[in-house]
């Protein structure tokens, strides 16, 4: 009896220890970051000796979904390669949970989708013009949390995608969203429950000549697994997905071109706090480092890496490192 109880307690302890030390939890790295930040503090008060520059520790946050974590991991590895100590606070939640943390200074940096990020502060501001979204967001963030910078944005976009199956596209000759109006009654529409009140959803559909609400409508949240599965199975024939969602490649879906540009341009850019940048010895070099990496990120790359992570279940850190190596950014 006693032996089996000891065994049970021992097994439980082993499992608890394994859980604590595995995965990308912030707890283990918090202890590691305490020493470097003290070193950074002492270095900033004493005159820097020639040739020794202590780089500040950077706390990088991300949203809950895999793509945000992947982007954050890519930026993290680039900075680590350049000598920065990185504390990873990934998976903070949705934008509504994560953004206040950035404003309050709980993290120094997050990757952001500039169209949706702008829409978080001003619902009417986002357009299909990435530069305009970037500049408007930068202007707003100058006034938040003591000042937050928006660095250069990627060519890659992950935005709302109107998607149909390949057989539907060939049956009705669909390539653009404008093609939908003519056959709208023949489709079963998978629309998110908030479509009625969301100008990006119902407003956009009306712009394309769709009578809203469509008669055949199924309520499913955009961009996640159930709506992709329902489209694949044939239960619905139209779905709102996200343009870099792996399901598009996985199931061979066809994304219809948003020819009237109803959806905001959601390129990705790092948001960085000014009070962190004040501790960086060479701000221009710091930004150049990240801008250079961002410039190499294309939508095709996001799609492919998304498949690696979300479909083939590869480890995010490994996928990030492989891409960075392939692009020559870790030399």
């Amino acid at each position, binding site marked *: 009896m006693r032996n089996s109880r000891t065994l049970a307690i021992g097994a439980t302890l082993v499992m608890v220890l394994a859980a604590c030390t595995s995965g990308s939890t912030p707890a283990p790295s918090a202890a590691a970051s305490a020493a470097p930040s003290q070193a950074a503090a002492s270095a900033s008060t004493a005159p820097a000796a020639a040739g020794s520059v202590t780089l500040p520790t950077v706390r990088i946050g991300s949203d809950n979904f895999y793509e945000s974590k992947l982007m954050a991991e890519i930026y993290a590895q680039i900075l680590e390669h350049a000598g920065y100590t990185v504390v990873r606070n990934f998976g903070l939640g949705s934008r509504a949970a994560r953004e206040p943390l950035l404003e309050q200074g709980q993290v120094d940096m997050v990757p952001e989708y500039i169209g949706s990020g702008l829409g978080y502060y001003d619902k009417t501001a986002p357009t299909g013009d990435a530069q305009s979204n970037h500049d408007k967001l930068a202007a707003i963030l100058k006034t938040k949390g003591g000042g937050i910078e928006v660095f250069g944005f990627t060519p890659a976009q992950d935005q709302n995608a109107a998607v149909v199956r390949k057989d539907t596209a060939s049956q009705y000759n669909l390539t653009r969203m404008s093609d939908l109006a003519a056959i709208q009654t023949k489709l079963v529409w998978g629309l998110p429950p908030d479509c009625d009140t969301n100008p990006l959803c119902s407003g956009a559909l009306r712009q394309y000549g769709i009578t809203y609400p469509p008669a055949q409508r199924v309520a499913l949240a955009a961009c996640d697994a159930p709506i992709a599965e329902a489209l694949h199975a044939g*239960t619905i024939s139209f779905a709102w997905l996200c343009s870099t969602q792996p399901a598009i490649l996985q199931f061979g879906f066809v994304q219809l071109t948003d020819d009237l540009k109803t959806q905001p341009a959601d390129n990705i850019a790092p948001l960085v706090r000014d009070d962190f940048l004040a501790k960086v010895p060479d701000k221009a070099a710091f930004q150049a480092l990240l801008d250079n990496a961002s410039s190499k990120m294309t939508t095709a790359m996001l799609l492919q890496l998304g498949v690696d992570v979300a479909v083939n279940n590869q480890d995010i850190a490994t996928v990030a490192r492989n891409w960075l190596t392939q692009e020559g950014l870790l030399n």
Partner: protein
Amino acid sequence: MPSFISWLADPTHWNGPDGVPTRVVEHLQISGSAVLVALLIGLPLGLWIGHTGRGATAAINVANIGRAIPSYALIGMILPISLSIGSQLYWLSVVPVFVAMTALAIPPILVGAYAGLREVDRDLIEAARGMGFRERQILVAIEIPLAAPVIVGGIRTATLQVIATATIGAIISGGGLGRYIFDGLLLPDIPRVEAGAVLIAALAIGVDTVLAGVQRLITPRPPRNPARTPEPPEVPREPPPAGTRRLVRATGG
């Protein structure tokens, strides 16, 4: 005034396909059918293992998988399987939540039947066997009536859990009161979320109260005036004839 009261007071929320009566009916349909099927599966099984005492550990452990796996996860796992069977809407919006709710309802029903039967006084059962009752008669005439309150208690637990958990069907376009919570969270429309939560709780408590009444009705009451049984006639005490002593000892008790 709390926001859900103004939401419930709005008459437009009480008609149409998204109105409260429609959603309540949908919710009862999915919950009721799941509990019914769980009864058909769990009750006979629970009565069997309770009556025979065999296979209880295995049956209960297997059944408990249905409530150990979070229903949210179960629905996510069942969905691709369900959609591979058929592409009509109910394979998306009904079947996964129905299967998950049935899996959730079976353990309390099974365990309730088993526990209720195990509590029945073994002496009663032995006495019945001695009187020549067959196994099925023992089960039907003695064990089930005595165990009925506990069995219905298990059904109550199952029903309450299913009504509360059937809300998650809304995630995969299902109907029922969960729609108010899911839609309300996405919009966001917090009064709707609160109203949905209140309605679900009220429905669950209401049904549970009805079942509690049923439970009280079927609880066997002890007789108030035990009938006076007549004394048996005096039997002259003689020593048993030689050779019958072994017989007497075998049947006495």
